[in-house]
């Protein structure tokens, strides 16, 4: 090889290397921007009250403490009594944790059950016509505030009035776990249908056909042939819907008040406390809400695109 060619190759290599470095540094830079707010929340959750708003702010807590976590996780609110300072009061978040878990799990499970059968019907028999696949998008695109006001009227006025005239006692869906679950099932059903459609479409119809010819009934085929093949898809769909419900804020803020409270609503309540903002416990709750969801999300990240883009993009 001549020296000229060698030099040219060297220059090209160097240029390629430089380009790679630029790309990696841009990506790392954006990665730092992404991680910074999360890092700040986690480190605040280990700070004691006097460190929350110091100037200049401390990037690492100087005397790290678990106080914030103790404060939000204490069981015996009565025993410890009411503290003089708001920053030392115990806050019991277990009620909200239970509400959140019950509402999110039951609604995701029921939506999954219904959505899987619906998706099967749409995939195999084209129920609702070809347009159905796009028309499910509508429910997702309507701003939640538009359905929040009708639902408030419905849950808090019409259901009690109707039950009083028909059944003789007042029954309200407002501020109940049942009402919230019902609502979440309805608004997440399009997601379930979309995600399950893409999984069921991948199961070849010939398999089912073979089972049918060998004498299996329709339900038997569904249970023994299709279900095992889409089981992992169902887990992914469940987790995705669970995450959506877990993060939902507007509807749970507007349709629950004193009794039921999901975790995002609880986090918001700390802010409007009359004592000023309690940054430490808020950060602790934020960490507790976020970490499990991020872990679940990372586990199913390959499939997130299906849910978030409503199957308009396939991977």
């Amino acid at each position, binding site marked *: 090889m001549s020296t000229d060619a060698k030099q040219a190759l060297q220059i090209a290599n160097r240029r390629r290397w430089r380009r*790679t470095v630029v*790309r*990696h540094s*841009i*990506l790392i830079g*954006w*990665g730092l921007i*992404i*991680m910074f*707010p*999360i890092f*700040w*929340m986690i480190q605040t959750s280990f700070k004691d009250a006097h460190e929350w708003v110091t100037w*200049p*702010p401390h*990037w690492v807590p100087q005397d790290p403490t678990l106080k914030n976590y103790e404060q939000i996780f204490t069981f015996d609110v009565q025993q410890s009594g009411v503290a003089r300072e708001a920053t030392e009061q115990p806050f019991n978040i277990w009620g909200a944790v239970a509400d959140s878990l019950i509402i999110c799990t039951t609604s995701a499970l029921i939506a999954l059950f219904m959505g899987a059968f*619906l998706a099967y019907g749409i995939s195999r028999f084209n129920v609702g016509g070809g347009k159905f696949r*796009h028309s499910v*998008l*509508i429910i997702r*695109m*309507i*701003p939640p*505030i*538009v*359905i*929040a*006001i*009708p639902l*408030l*009227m*419905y849950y808090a*006025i*019409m259901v009690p009035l109707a039950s009083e005239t028909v059944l003789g006692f007042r029954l309200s869906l407002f501020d109940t776990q049942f009402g919230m679950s*019902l609502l979440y*099932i*309805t608004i997440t059903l399009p997601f379930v249908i979309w995600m399950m459609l893409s999984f069921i479409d991948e199961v070849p119809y010939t398999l089912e056909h073979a089972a049918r010819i060998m004498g299996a009934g329709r339900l038997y085929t569904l249970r023994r042939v299709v279900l095992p093949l889409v089981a992992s898809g169902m887990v992914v769909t469940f987790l995705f819907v669970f*995450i959506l419900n*877990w*993060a939902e*804020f*507007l509807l749970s803020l*507007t349709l629950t008040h004193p009794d039921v409270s999901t*975790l*995002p609503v609880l*986090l918001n309540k700390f*802010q409007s406390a009359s004592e000023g903002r309690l*940054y430490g416990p808020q*950060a602790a709750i934020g960490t507790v*809400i*976020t970490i499990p*969801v*991020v872990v679940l*999300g*990372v586990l199913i990240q390959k499939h997130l695109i299906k849910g978030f*883009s409503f199957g*308009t*993009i*396939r*991977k």
Partner: protein
Amino acid sequence: MVEGMFILILIIPFALTIYISFLRWRANRPFEQAYLSGLRNYESVIADSGFWDSLGRTFYFAGAAVVFELIIGFFLALMVHQITRGRRFYITILLIPMMVVPVVAGYNFSMIYLDSGPLNQILAPGLNLFDINPRIRWLSNPIAAQWAIILADIWQWTSLTFLIFLSGFSALPPQLINAARVMGASRRQTFFWVELPLLKPAIVIAVVIRSMEALKMFDPVVLLTFGGPGTSTQTVAYYLWEQVWQFNKYSFGAAASIMLLIIFSVLIFFGIYLIGRQGKAIERGEA
């Protein structure tokens, strides 16, 4: 069964809302005693400058946020597409914001914008040069507060546009690009004349989905500013929430939400039409 549920949860409430929107009713009076008032609520919504201002502001927020999300997401996807090593690592990191609960994201940014927060600390050396007190209250200035909310939205949802563009890039057929290269097209020409047209479906989908989601903006407003200072950061969702849940103007809220639904229906059908056209192009094999 499912149709029944949609009727129970969506149709009946809407019928009820339309009825209530014709009533003259506030929370200080029992529902049974309210009387019909015709179209008065609709008239007051149309005459209400707060409603239209907040609607305009919502479009402004959504537009600004979506433009930045598209640009940043596109370039990040391009970068990840071009590197070979550590791709999975970067994808995992870049997708995290999407999974953070929006309320928590709003809370995180409220800590960052504090007058004694890290943002001011980072800016302090520069600000000291000009003799400005570095402890700026970002959320007390109307324009800064608006951009604070837009930035929080960009932080969280750039990962979605990134994801859509990334799958668009990885679906590009290598044969076409190689063919263009062999025929003598430069790198830049290949990008603008071959790759970009092929990415059109991904771009349209990202624009439609993100715009529709951004128009719902509510959580960061509550967590960061409560619509303030003044009304400078009220989005339409926040405005209606305040009217109904803080001021108890139920029939006004009902009329406004019906009007909002009509406005949004037009947008939604337009968006679905756009996506549907791209979807057909995908099925025909053009993309």
